[in-house]
């Protein structure tokens, strides 16, 4: 099967959605599909060969943090070129309600669309105001996936419709390999680990830093390792000497370093205060065998489950956090229990499970009639070898598509479909003027339509 994935966020910067798409693409390629990913990226960024750049991304405030998105007429042209060249059976868009690449693709899409909603936002006023602009695209989505119940609720309240909840995936084995080493018991100090863009308040580092003096009072030799991009001087300036001595910033870490760091942790702390819709990092930490202490956000509770595979504390409560960390650091047996319970739980989120479910969704919206050869010709008792070759999704049988009389090619050749897309794109250009996102030269009629749309979206 030919699959087009669209990532709205820049591939230059690591982030949950980007990593999810990268892993998904690699899983699908491993299953024998043809996969192309469209994502914003700077010209000089080195990209995996299956990624096509849609141009540079611009930092924009969205969903409570700064997202790097790309949009505008030039990008819209690139999207069209990518779609034409890719000749996809299925498009899988991520975060289609974000004003970006996914939305542009949605406007231009002519093949079945699957969409994954990642974020859970508390404030949806803005989204609702843009509803008439979003609706035409949303109407094209055949299958909706939410990564968590929280994301599902966000979606149901803003765009409606039923949804499948399929969690994000993790290659659990990659993390497990390192986990066998575990922390070296002979080497104190007890190590607390924090991972993420620590300058963002919603990641919750301030909560952890407030808890740290209380922890140090009980466990004086504990150290906190903070990994991730951000301005460390700014954070350090606010710390007392005692705390500053116990905190070590190690900057951005690579995949392997991250695994080693997690495997060696006595406690992995996720003190996030909101804005998380799925705790992929919790799954990674559990796979690597780190005992997890997380704030009781819905998304985190869903990952940890009722199995006691991690410790939860009330969101933003630094006293409770300190108490949990101290309890954990002083109890090696509890650490060991959490390690194995976490790894057990993480299996639920392995790509082999998650990816197969996503693949099933693609199959159930794609129109190509595959199977062992065109219908009616192949003998049903073709050997398993032939059957397998026939069912290989990448081998799309043109004859089957034509015999069914509504193959993609037939539809695409039809004049009306083409015309509609042109119109869609024109209105998109006009509407981006209306939203004063980018200046676009457009005809008078388009401008009027744009104004009307803006007027109605109030």
């Amino acid at each position, binding site marked *: 099967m030919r699959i087009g994935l669209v990532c709205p966020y820049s591939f230059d910067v690591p982030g949950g959605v980007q990593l999810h798409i990268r892993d998904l693409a690699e899983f699908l390629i491993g299953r024998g599909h043809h996969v192309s990913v469209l994502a914003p990226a700077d010209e000089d960024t080195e990209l995996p060969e299956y990624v096509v750049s849609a141009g540079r991304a611009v930092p924009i405030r969205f969903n409570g943090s700064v997202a790097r998105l790309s949009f505008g007429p030039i990008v819209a042209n690139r999207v069209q070129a990518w779609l034409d060249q890719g000749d996809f059976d299925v498009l899988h868009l991520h975060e289609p309600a974000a004003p970006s690449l996914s939305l542009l693709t949605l406007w231009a899409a002519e093949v*079945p669309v699957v969409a994954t909603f990642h974020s859970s936002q508390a404030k949806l006023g803005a989204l609702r105001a843009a509803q*008439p602009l979003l*609706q*035409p695209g949303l*109407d*094209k989505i*055949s*299958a909706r996936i939410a990564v968590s119940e929280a994301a599902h609720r966000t979606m149901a309240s803003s765009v409606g*419709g*039923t949804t*499948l909840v399929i969690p994000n995936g993790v290659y659990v084995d990659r993390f497990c390999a390192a986990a066998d080493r575990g922390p070296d018991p002979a080497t104190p100090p007890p190590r607390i680990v924090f991972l993420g863009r620590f300058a963002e308040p919603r990641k919750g580092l301030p909560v952890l830093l407030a808890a740290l003096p209380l922890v140090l009072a009980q466990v004086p030799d504990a150290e906190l390792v903070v990994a991730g991009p951000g301005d460390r001087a700014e954070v350090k300036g606010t710390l007392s000497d005692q705390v500053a001595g116990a905190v070590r910033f190690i900057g951005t870490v690579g995949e392997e370093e991250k695994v080693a760091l997690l495997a060696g942790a006595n406690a992995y702390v996720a003190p996030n205060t909101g804005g998380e819709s799925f705790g992929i990092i919790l799954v990674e930490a559990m796979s690597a065998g780190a005992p997890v202490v997380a704030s009781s956000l819905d998304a985190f509770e869903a990952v940890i489950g009722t199995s006691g595979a991690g410790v939860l504390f009330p969101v933003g409560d630094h006293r409770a956090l300190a108490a949990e960390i101290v309890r954990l650091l002083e109890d090696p047996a509890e650490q060991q229990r959490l390690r194995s319970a976490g790894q057990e739980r993480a299996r639920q989120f392995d790509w082999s499970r998650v990816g197969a479910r996503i693949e*099933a*969704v693609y*199959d*159930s*919206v*794609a*129109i*190509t*009639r*595959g*199977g*062992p050869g065109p*219908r*009616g010709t192949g003998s*049903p*008792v073709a050997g*398993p070898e032939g*059957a*397998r070759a026939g*069912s290989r999704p990448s081998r799309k049988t043109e004859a089957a598509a034509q015999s*069914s*009389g*509504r193959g993609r090619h037939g539809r695409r050749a039809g004049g009306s*479909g083409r015309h*509609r897309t042109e*119109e869609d794109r024109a209105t998109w250009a006009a509407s981006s003027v209306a939203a004063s996102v980018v200046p676009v030269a457009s005809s008078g009629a388009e401008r009027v*339509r744009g104004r*009307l*749309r803006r*007027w*109605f979206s109030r």
Partner: protein
Amino acid sequence: MNGTWRVGEIVVVIAVILAVLLALGWYLSYTAVRLDRLHHRVKGTAAALDAQLVRRAEAALEVAYLAGIDPASATLLATSAGRVLDHEEAWSQERLDAESELTEVLRATQEPEAAQSAEVEELIERLRGTGERVQLARRFHNESVHEARDVRGQRLVRFLHLAGRAKVPLPINFDDDWPNAG
């Protein structure tokens, strides 16, 4: 003086009427385009369901011939899968009945107990996969039908025949409860 007031009022009234008409026109064209799009999607989801049903029947045939299940079950399975494959594309009641029957037979068929070769395991696994995909595809289809009918049901849409000659999309209902979701 009185006269200029009148002219001003008339201009305002005309402007308001024009604005209302423009707004109405925009809304109607917006809704018509939206309906067209929804109908388009309904066609797509129906075709996808059709494709999955064919795959399920083909996989069932293969299992009947190759998986070494008992001959009575195999005959039943092959017969009902064959019946499904006899129906071309149209969503006739006979076809839906045939699909329900295949589901019933699949539910009743016992998996071979003895350990099987890897190839047979794969065949059975594939059949199970097609069953899940049929459930998903039918769900997605009925959802798109529901959305299209919602818009068609609006009073203005009905009154002005905005849906044109597009047929009223119908949900597709048959028994697809195999394997158990989950």
